[in-house]
């Protein structure tokens, strides 16, 4: 079973801080990580390979630094890694990104399954997987919580707010993974030494290598544009309840809530 996994390198949003004076994001020193849901996608692909054999290829679109994410994926056990990078790809929205990734998936070729994470923690759109599936003319199952291969068929448990849907689909298909799907493995020590000390194994695809229509990619080709961005302002009059001890503070709080008829 040959599997292609699309991963994104993202800043760890848990560590993103705001410069209150300029109202901008402080990205310096914020570590880059493999997007968490993408890590679940990769784990599922590796687990399926462990069980059924085959090959796992990882694709990441991004600047040259995104190689770091690919190295980590290789250290986790992926067989090959492709960096999709070109200045022409910069500023792509989900449409353009899905267009480029679909072309990269086609170029890698020979796949049974394509995995993505549900959504990236920087953009939180959850759109690239389904849009890419549409461009590849493949069926999709998003929010995958459990995946079982049953002969020719694949049985998928799709998570929703109101319950799980058990679905049946035949490859090739695009899956998007959620956190509940699995617990991602750590990169192995051996993998780390081989990948980080060894020769560079990462393939690079640029615009020239891909069959994409340039009117559909990059900042110019993206149907949506950022009009403005701003840091949300939150202010409230906070009252810190004082008291001799926690018991007294708690009693004061309960009094206040009762007075406001809140409880």
């Amino acid at each position: 079973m040959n599997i292609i996994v699309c991963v994104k390198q993202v800043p760890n949003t848990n560590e993103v801080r705001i410069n209150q004076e300029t109202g901008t994001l402080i990205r310096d020193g914020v570590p880059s990580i493999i997007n968490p849901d993408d890590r679940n996608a990769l784990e599922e692909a590796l687990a399926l390979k462990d069980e059924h054999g085959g090959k796992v290829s990882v694709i990441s679109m991004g600047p040259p630094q995104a190689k770091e994410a690919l190295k980590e994926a290789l250290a986790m056990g992926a067989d090959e890694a492709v960096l999709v990078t070109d200045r022409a790809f910069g500023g792509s929205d989900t449409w353009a990104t899905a267009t480029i990734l679909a072309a990269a998936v086609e170029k890698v070729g020979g796949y049974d399954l394509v995995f993505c994470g549900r959504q990236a923690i920087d953009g939180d759109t959850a759109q690239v997987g389904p849009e890419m599936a549409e461009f590849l003319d493949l069926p999709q199952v998003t929010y995958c919580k459990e995946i079982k291969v049953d002969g020719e068929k694949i049985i998928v448990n799709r998570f929703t707010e109101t319950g799980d849907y058990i679905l049946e689909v035949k490859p090739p298909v695009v899956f998007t993974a959620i956190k509940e799907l699995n617990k991602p493995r750590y990169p192995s020590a051996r993998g780390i030494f081989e990948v980080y000390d060894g020769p560079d194994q990462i393939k690079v695809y640029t615009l020239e290598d891909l069959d994409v229509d340039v009117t559909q990619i990059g900042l110019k080709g993206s149907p949506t544009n950022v009009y403005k961005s701003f840091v949300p302002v939150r202010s409230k009059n906070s009252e810190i309840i004082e008291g001799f001890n926690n018991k007294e503070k708690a009693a004061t709080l309960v009094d206040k809530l009762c007075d406001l008829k809140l409880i």
Partner: protein
Amino acid sequence: MDFKFTDAQIMLQKVAKEFAETEIAPIAAEVDKLGYFPKESFEKMAKIGFTGIGTPVEFGGSGGNDIDKAIVVTEIAKKCAATAAILSIHTIFAAVVEKFGNEEQKQKYLPKVTSGGCLGAFALTEPNAGSDAASAKTTAILDEDSGEYVLNGTKCFISGGGQAQYLAIFALTDPSKGLKGMSCILVEKGTPGFSIGKIEEKMGIHGSETAELIFDNCRVPKENLIGVEGKGFKIAMSALDGARVGVAAQALGIAEGALEETIKYVHERVQFGKPIGQLQGIQWYIADMATKTECAKWMMYRAAYLKKEGLPYTKEAAMAKLNASENARFVTNLALQIHGGYGYMKDYPLERMYRDAKITEIYEGTSEIHKVVISRAVIG
């Protein structure tokens, strides 16, 4: 001169840190309280290949070297000194087999202890032979007829002794020659005549089980001899040099862990209307803790570097271990002090770190023995 980690080492440290925080830290207090060997943690370390660091890939190891091993032991010790001890001591067994074993022994045992999830142990100490290893009494007499060594005697304070599948036992094959008659014999768990005696109750590192091993006419095939007869003491001393770097890494981790806890605490803890980190008395404590820990770090990595390069490192390993262990006690003591009453309570990890730190001044050679080793090297 180059003080940089390689890309692989940066990644290894990141992974080890995440592993320690995610898998080890949540159970560290429980392991300490209940005093059980964290078998699952060991299996997880085997799965990632931490147990195979320093052993070549061809024998099922992970590759890597002594610096890599030290990085992992340090990160784990930051969260649980006992788990770090288990890992560090375990790798000594693999190092002995890899360095002194024959091809057959390497093929047979190394894959099991590197990636196979089997624990290895190293048994030298006896009730009357601690620092004075020459007083060891355990014998392994070759029975020419059956082609077996017959072991008799008792080993004590053996880390992982009760859990280990494979044990490197140091015993006299020729008692008349004293230390020159000592050999290294491999014994497997469950061999008739080999039993586990007392499991010690200790002050700290409760997760690292410490056992007494009893040999009563325990027979093992003569193929289990590692290296040649009479070279046991040399093997033991060589292994201990490596083990000392491991203890230094463990002690460094304990100190770094305690320092991290303290830095977090001095930001959070408010007394006299401000976080205590703004008080100069506390600031100076932390400056001392950080400086001495930095010193412990680089002495340890230098010893590991010399070992990796195949250069003499006995003196440097002894210095690194002596310094790092004394620093671990110093730092955990101040860290606990800064935490005040909270530090003394089991809700915070400081009192555990304080207890765990103490062993690093004692095992794999006491501080005093290290001073003997160092002074011998310095004075001549």
